């Protein structure tokens, strides 16, 4: 990871994503342990945020969140899509939560 040339835009957004992810965990998950992994997998960067907390039903939560105009996961998704990346959440009640984010680190050639 050290020699990777990442645009400052991607860098700051990854930083924010980790921050938001940790904040969500602190606020909701009641987790004892959090693992963050950042792996270069050309041409992408993979970010994983996993906790062993109480988990949730992803589908229900996301639907509810959009109705209630809640920010947490939505704003993370927004950030990821701005970076042309993708985000997946895997969670079940009582089984913790895994957030998988993958974003390209190479600037795409335009035009």
């Amino acid at each position, binding site marked *: *990871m*050290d*020699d990777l040339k990442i645009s400052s835009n991607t860098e700051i957004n990854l930083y924010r994503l980790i921050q938001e992810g940790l904040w969500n965990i602190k606020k909701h998950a009641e987790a004892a342990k959090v693992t963050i*992994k*950042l*792996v*270069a*997998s*050309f*041409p992408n960067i*993979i970010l*994983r945020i996993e906790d062993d907390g109480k988990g949730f039903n992803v589908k229900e939560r996301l639907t509810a969140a959009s109705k209630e105009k809640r920010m947490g996961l939505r704003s993370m998704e927004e950030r990821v899509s701005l970076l042309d990346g993708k985000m*997946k959440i*895997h969670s079940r009640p009582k089984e913790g939560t*895994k957030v*998988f984010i993958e974003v390209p680190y190479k600037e795409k050639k335009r035009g």
Partner: protein
Amino acid sequence: MAEQKSIIIIDDHPLFREGLKTIISRDDRFKVVGEAGSGHEGLEMTKRLKPDLVVVDISLPDQSGIQLTRDLRRHFSETKILIVSMHSKIDYIAEAFQAGATGYVVKESASERLLQGLKSVAKGDYYLDSSVSHAVVENLMKSPLKAAKITDADYATLTPREQEVMRFLAEGLSSKAVAEKLFISPKTVENHRANIMNKLGLHSTIELVRYAAKLGLIDVDLWKD
């Protein structure tokens, strides 16, 4: 003769200071230029005299020697700090070094080890009193290896192309399928695979998958979704 290293002693016990001074005077490479009985006084004196070395007692009347060490470190980055302490407990030792001291001598053994410590610290080395090093090493051996690995050195040696190939292989794609995805020949994929295995010290596809999972490249739970 090389230039003498100037030293300030900060300790609230006049008798002990006297003792330290006597020890230091045995070596003409060192010269005690000042003594202070409290942290505050010591800080002021350091500001004024800019010594090469400061000998700090870990427990001072107005603040801890650890706190003083932090302050000294922040304001006088050139000045080397050696802690003298009654304590041989590992917590104090770790804290002292974390605060920025580079030497630690237990008071009991000061008469034999202080000069040795000062010499090391003056050179820019770390010095840990050998009477406590036994406990320190034992403690190190007890503490579990850090769970967090900052970087995986082997994985970092893979080329971008090899990273791409590795991911596909770990996801279960055949060489042929990888070749089609990357617009290269299956032969080239095989070469990449051999290089990857070699660099990572792996011997089978199962090992490759396990390695990739541990690293976070792939995740079985998320596959299913």
